[in-house]
């Protein structure tokens, strides 16, 4: 099971908390997923409402580790301020660092991300950077102090799965000792299993579960998929080959 910044996590599934049909379904989806980490955000409250407190009580009851994000930030400065507020609000040094660079793809801005990561690591944050699978960017993030990398599978909310298997595989090969998480873009359990088969430590998803017709059933599906994929990775899979090779013994076949 993954270890993030010295903390043992009992599951390879990390789950977002947004977009569920109801708080009750959110809670049940979490239970069925076995997820060990919940991502959360911080936002303005309208008027005198206390929605934030109610939501926070629900998350506390889940009994999982909390990973606040800087979703929606488009500059390093904005992300750093958001992270500082998140640290106080959620009482954790963990931060899922998002610095968005493009409106259509929500692609991370590698330059802003690196700048913010360096600043936050220097301030004692434990940064989970939402990044692309760019090898050079990832090297720089590690140099800046990140001890986890979270490359995207595909753009947030698309459900397209793993768009760049080669890139994800080379990242795994280059960072054998850094926990790697596929964050964003997953739509189906098979895609999560594939990420595990590539040797990734965990997957982080939200929309695939929350927006499924039956979020609770989909949460169970993802839980089994990550377990299956992780078992496969550990089991040293066979090498694929182009030519057929009979699995049934050829010797001893009746001469008919």
């Amino acid at each position, binding site marked *: 099971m993954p270890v993030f910044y010295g903390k043992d996590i009992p599951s390879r599934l990390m789950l*977002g*908390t*947004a*977009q*569920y049909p109801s708080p009750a379904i*959110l809670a049940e989806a979490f239970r069925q997923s076995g997820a060990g980490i919940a*991502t*959360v*955000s*911080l*936002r*303005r*409250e309208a008027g*005198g409402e*206390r*929605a*934030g*407190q109610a*939501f*926070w009580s629900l*998350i506390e009851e889940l009994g999982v580790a909390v990973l*606040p*994000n800087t*979703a929606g930030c488009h500059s390093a*400065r*904005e992300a750093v*301020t958001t992270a*500082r*507020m*998140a640290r*106080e*609000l*959620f009482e954790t040094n963990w931060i899922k660092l998002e610095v968005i660079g493009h409106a259509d793809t929500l692609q991370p801005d590698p330059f802003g991300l690196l700048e913010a990561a360096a600043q936050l690591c220097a301030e004692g944050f434990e940064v989970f950077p939402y990044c692309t699978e760019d090898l050079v960017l990832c090297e720089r993030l590690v140099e800046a102090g990140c001890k986890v990398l979270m490359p995207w599978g595909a753009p*947030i909310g698309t459900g397209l799965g793993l768009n760049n298997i080669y890139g994800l595989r080379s990242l795994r090969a280059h960072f054998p000792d850094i926990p790697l998480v596929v964050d*964003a873009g997953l739509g189906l359990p098979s895609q999560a299993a594939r990420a595990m088969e590539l040797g990734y430590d965990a997957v982080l998803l*939200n*929309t695939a579960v929350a927006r499924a017709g039956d979020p609770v059933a989909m949460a169970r599906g993802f839980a089994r998929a990550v377990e299956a994929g992780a078992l496969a990775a550990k089991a040293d899979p066979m090498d694929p080959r182009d030519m057929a090779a009979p699995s049934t013994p050829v010797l001893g076949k009746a001469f008919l």
Partner: protein
Amino acid sequence: MKIIVNGEAVESAAPDLAALLTELGKGEAKVATSINEAFVPRGARGQQALRDGDRVEIVAPRQGG
């Protein structure tokens, strides 16, 4: 004086950020704050004087991905 709270103009006589939060009924709320895009820790709110036109952000836990 006029303070911009979460993007909306608010007329307030609160001398500091802690007083403003109390005025808004959020004195004890689980919120984090910033003034003019700079984080203001909970413990510093009482020393953080407000000036006309200050932009205050007050944020609370919310669902996220």
